[in-house]
């Protein structure tokens, strides 16, 4: 995803000279194409995320569109107040990009687990929040955010994620992307867990559980219409995210409650407890049910075998 991001950012920067890239001393080799092509619009702010974000705000106050770039929590939490006060309050054109969201840096330990970021970014004023599900979504989101004035948070996976969509992708900020239609269960995912949800959907469909699968890359503003439609047209909803409380599951539940919809619902997400043991992204995900098998089991819990679907 990070390669898709930088390739798209190069295109954006080529046609819009206001676009800057500011990193927090991370992006080794990945950012080189941008640095070589647009040296005057690149800045390595050093290992100093508060200053990096303040600088981005200052640049934006002079008319720039600034992408800040770092990994996991670093561009989000250390500088949370700079994001809130300097960027969001002033509604500035600063896009915060985090590479390695979720458990992508699994074995590096809890300090590198970006598992609260979506909740924190989603409550801030003026903020658009996007967590792409595959490299095509990442590419489309980068272009779309560059065209949308105002603050944004782009939570990317890391490297080597498979392309899951057919190109060209029909991507609009704020719109869910339907991967497949179904009438028993709706699975809604955000971010890089889309792949395991596709795998689970195949298994469910094969067993006769008609599965609607929605990729929901934009968390703010959430596609409430797609959720309402799922509530009307399917019998249960499962949300899946590589994130703790306060993310997709919380937001979808709020939409359902606000619509006064009562229906089988489950949020498959990470525990609040820090993960203290090492493991790969896949291993750490699976340990908390974030796997094709875990999704399958969650659906079966919502729609038990003795119901129509099984």
């Amino acid at each position, binding site marked *: 995803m990070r390669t898709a991001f930088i390739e798209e950012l190069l295109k954006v920067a080529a046609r819009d000279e206001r676009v800057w890239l500011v990193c927090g001393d991370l992006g080794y080799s990945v950012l080189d194409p941008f640095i070589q092509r647009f040296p005057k*619009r690149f800045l390595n702010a050093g290992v100093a995320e508060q*200053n990096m974000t*303040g600088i981005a705000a200052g640049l*934006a106050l002079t008319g720039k569109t600034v992408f800040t770039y770092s990994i996991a929590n670093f561009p989000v939490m250390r500088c949370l107040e700079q994001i809130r006060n*300097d960027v969001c309050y002033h509604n500035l054109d600063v896009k915060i990009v985090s590479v390695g969201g979720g458990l992508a840096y699994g074995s590096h330990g809890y300090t590198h687990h970006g598992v609260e970021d979506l909740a924190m970014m989603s409550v801030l004023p003026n903020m658009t929040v996007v967590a792409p599900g595959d490299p095509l979504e990442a590419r489309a989101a980068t272009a779309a955010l560059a065209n949308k004035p105002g603050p944004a948070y782009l939570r990317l996976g890391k490297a080597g994620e498979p392309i899951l969509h057919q190109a060209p992708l029909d991507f609009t900020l704020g719109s869910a992307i339907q991967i497949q239609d179904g009438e028993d269960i709706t699975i809604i995912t955000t971010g890089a867990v889309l792949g395991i949800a596709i795998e689970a959907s195949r298994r469910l469909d094969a067993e006769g559980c008609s599965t609607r699968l929605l990729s929901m890359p934009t968390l703010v503003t959430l596609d409430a219409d797609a959720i309402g439609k799922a509530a009307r047209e399917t019998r249960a909803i499962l949300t899946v995210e590589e994130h703790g409380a306060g993310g997709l599951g919380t937001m979808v539940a709020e939409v359902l409650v606000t619509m006064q919809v009562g229906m089988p619902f489950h949020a498959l997400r990470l525990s609040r407890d820090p993960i203290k043991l090492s493991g790969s992204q896949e291993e750490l995900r699976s340990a908390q049910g974030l796997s094709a098998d875990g999704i399958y089991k969650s659906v079966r819990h919502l729609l038990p075998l003795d119901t129509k679907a099984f």
Partner: protein
Amino acid sequence: MIENDPSPSKLTEADLRGRAATLRAHAVRMIHRAKASHLGSSLSMADVIASLYWQILRLNPLQPEWPDRDRFLLSKGHGAAMLYAALAERGFFPVSELDSYCQRGSRLTGHATSGVPGVELSSGSLGHGLPVGCGMALAAKREDRSFRTFVLLSDGELDEGSNWEAILFAPQHQLDNLVVIVDYNKIQSYGLVKDVLELEPLADKFRAFRWAVKEVDGHNMNELSNVLTSLPMEQGKPTAIIANTIKGKGVSFMEDTLAWHYKSPTDEQLSQALKELGAAS
């Protein structure tokens, strides 16, 4: 290009002192009316503000967003009363609006808020202005633009690590279009600076971080004028002006006291303060 408004730089030292007294009187009245706080912090920066707004900053009050204006960031946002007073007296908005400071529905909130004509950055949480100023100065540097960026810091806010990130950053990028002024009144929120987190040797700290540094009497218009009219002090280096000031300066019973970080003047104290400032009550 829009020219700066008729230059006030011909003002004499006495004129500037008069301006500062007017600003002080505004701040005392505003904070009294609103039963607000931070009066001591407003009074300590009055002379710096008068010098900047009547002598130094290239501004156009009729067009606050003029792209080539100098930027002034009040990082010590709790000094907002003094900033608003200066902006009003400079014509950014009516002086009568100062009466609404901290009142219901007013845009003049207790900490500096953008949206008020002439306020570049909302502040109030400390340690934000200098990083933002670095971004502005960097943009000007990279694009050969002429505007300068001035950031006014309190001494207490130099406790914030974000400032030291920015202090490390600015010389690296040779931001000689960036000027920091420290309102060094030696009293922070809950005690004397030397008792809370001593900053000394402050000038040496800036020098060690590769800044051009000048220590001045922050209430001496000539000293302020001399340094602010000869910027940058050194080519390729950001400038740090350490303005030695007195908290509550100008009102005898407020001077150098921690309590006036919080207290709001009584009616009697208001009269006494205005009398000392030579202003009508």
